[in-house]
């Protein structure tokens, strides 16, 4: 273990290497570029590969190609690049290829404000690509957590054969903080489930007791087909309803049946809290301070920090809604996470605290909401 001072983006890069990432393809974009720069330097040292592609579409395509070739892969981008990547987030979900996409959110829409903070991509992370699909999105609050959640992102991605989005924001990405960097060999790594049947028996999308079929890498003797079309158990295109329906059910089930594993939350609650703040990312830092100030003034207030944004922590929020009269949702957008909280807790309980001009939600803003001013 070494104690270091570093940026959130650097912690993501180290987290990727610790998780076993050996391929990165990306395109320069503020405020995510440090991740690419660091990995271009560090990956060759561990026999990993780095490539700067011609755009973000190609970047995620290359990552998926490399993952099919057997390397844990990731890319890093921000708003405009994340928009371009939507096509291949859908492809990775459809083909069930593990890949990690880091999105260091900046103020949008469009080119927006490249160096300003935002949490405006919450809904895009969930629904940015077309069609119904499963997705996992994680969002760290600190530099240290940026490392931990990057490792988690890779592990979830391999374990569930799904694209995982690490929803950073400019504040966490560029902020410098103390981090206790563990010895990388001690970090828990999850590898994709390999098949144990001979090639002629292998069904790339079926014949598994769990909802996650074993994955063979290209070039290892299992010749099979991958397509973004709806496919049967062998991976061949299909238009049959009795093959499409089970597929769409299974890929959603593989996430829904494992919510206990995937949903990570930080709870600071007591049964007497009538006001609870629900938030994530950089906004959680302001909220943390506001909660502290409120408690000094003897206001009973709890706090829930969502580390897993998608799938949404429905059970936690409905439990909170049973005790709390008011749920305050601070976020650096005009109310995206709040939509989900309202869906679960009911609209009349939710108080939104929003800021979408590139500046953080301040502790004062959250405190005023807690005090009901």
């Amino acid at each position, binding site marked *: 273990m070494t104690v270091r001072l570093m940026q959130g983006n650097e912690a993501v890069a180290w987290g990727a290497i610790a998780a076993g990432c050996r*391929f990165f*393809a990306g395109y320069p974009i503020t405020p995510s570029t440090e991740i690419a720069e660091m990995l271009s330097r560090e990956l*060759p*040292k561990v*026999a990993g*590969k780095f*490539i700067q*592609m*011609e*755009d973000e*579409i*190609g*970047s995620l*395509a*290359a*990552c*998926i*190609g*490399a*993952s*099919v*070739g*057997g*390397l844990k*892969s990731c890319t890093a981008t921000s708003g405009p690049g994340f928009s371009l990547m939507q*096509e*291949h987030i859908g*492809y990775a979900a459809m083909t069930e290829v593990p890949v990690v996409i880091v999105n260091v959110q900046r103020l949008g829409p469009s080119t927006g404000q490249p160096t300003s903070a935002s949490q405006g991509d919450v809904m895009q992370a969930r629904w940015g690509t077309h069609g119904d699909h499963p997705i996992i999105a994680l969002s760290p609050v600190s530099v240290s957590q940026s490392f931990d959640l990057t490792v988690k992102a890779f592990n979830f991605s391999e374990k569930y054969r799904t694209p995982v989005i690490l929803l950073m924001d400019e504040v966490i990405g560029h902020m410098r903080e103390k981090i206790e960097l563990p010895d990388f060999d001690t970090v828990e790594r999850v590898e994709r489930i390999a098949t144990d049947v001979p090639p002629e028996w292998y069904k790339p999308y079926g014949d598994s007791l769990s909802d996650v079929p074993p994955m063979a*890498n*290209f*070039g*290892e*003797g299992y*010749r*099979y*087909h*991958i*397509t*973004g*079309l709806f496919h049967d158990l*062998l991976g*061949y*295109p299909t238009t049959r309803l009795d093959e499409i329906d089970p597929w769409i059910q299974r890929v959603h089930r593989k996430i829904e049946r494992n919510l206990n594993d995937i949903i990570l939350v930080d709870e600071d609650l007591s049964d007497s809290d009538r006001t609870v703040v629900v938030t994530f990312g950089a906004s959680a830092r302001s909220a943390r301070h506001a909660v502290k100030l409120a408690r000094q003034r003897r206001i009973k207030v709890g706090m829930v920090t969502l580390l897993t944004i998608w799938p949404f922590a429905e059970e936690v929020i409905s439990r909170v809604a049973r005790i709390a009269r008011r749920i305050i949702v601070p976020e650096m957008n005009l109310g995206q996470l709040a939509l989900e909280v309202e869906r679960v807790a009911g609209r009349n309980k939710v108080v939104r605290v929003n800021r979408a001009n590139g500046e953080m939600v301040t502790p004062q803003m959250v405190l005023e909401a807690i005090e009901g001013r």
Partner: protein
Amino acid sequence: MLTHAEHTEYMYLRPTKKFPNVWCAGCGIGIVMGALIRAVDRIGLDKDDVALISGIGCTGRMPVYMDFNTMHTTHGRALAFATGLKIARPSLKVIVIMGDGDALAIGGNHFIHAARRNIGLTAIVVNNAIYGMTGGQYSPTTPIGAKAATAPYGNIEPPMPICELAKAAGASFVARSTVYHAIELDRFIEQAIRKNGFSLVEAVSYCPTTFGRLNKLGTTVDMMRQLKENSVTASAAEKLTPQEREMKIVRGVMHDIDKPEYTQLYQQLIQDVQAAEKAKTENS
């Protein structure tokens, strides 16, 4: 006479995939598929060591029938997927099969940059000068004046020269033939796969269903005859005036040079970095 199972092609088709294929009767894509199989067979590649990657469109459907590691990706992005796969597994022979709209319109940027990097991929572009699957819209290689579903008054955009583009961008090997000249096509694809670097084969084809019908080119047999009569070898083309040459499909190896291949350069980079790191730790 050979039985069905003794044909070379049969050995490389998936036993589990139900035929018939998706292509229209008379389509040229099947000839390119046959040429590709014969090239792979002649080189003697193990099927496990071949990856066939495609994009979207009629040509994009080719990999599913072939008994290799196959990936049907998104429109225009096949080369970007193939780039990642090749870097992850340099020992794989990665062949990318694309249509003209796929490779040059939506995928034009990936095409240029894959060639520029000189990464060891073999790109085959089946050029039928039309978007066939969507019903015959004009593509970046549709000739001026030709009719298309989206050019009802005739196309006014000049066509993109695929081979010249690949050469200018940095490819190591560039060749062109047609689906009429199937034997020549085998040979060019074989040379392309053997090439250490980015190689491109343009396989000029036709579309009997949309382009042919909209432009009143007759039957499939007529279109085959046109490929035969409208094409000349590169050496014969040299004797033509520039104006005459413009009207012809020039067949042959247009470009063949040796230069460093991307994944090998990266492997060398890794070795150098690791050696430098080792020296640093030993000195400290």
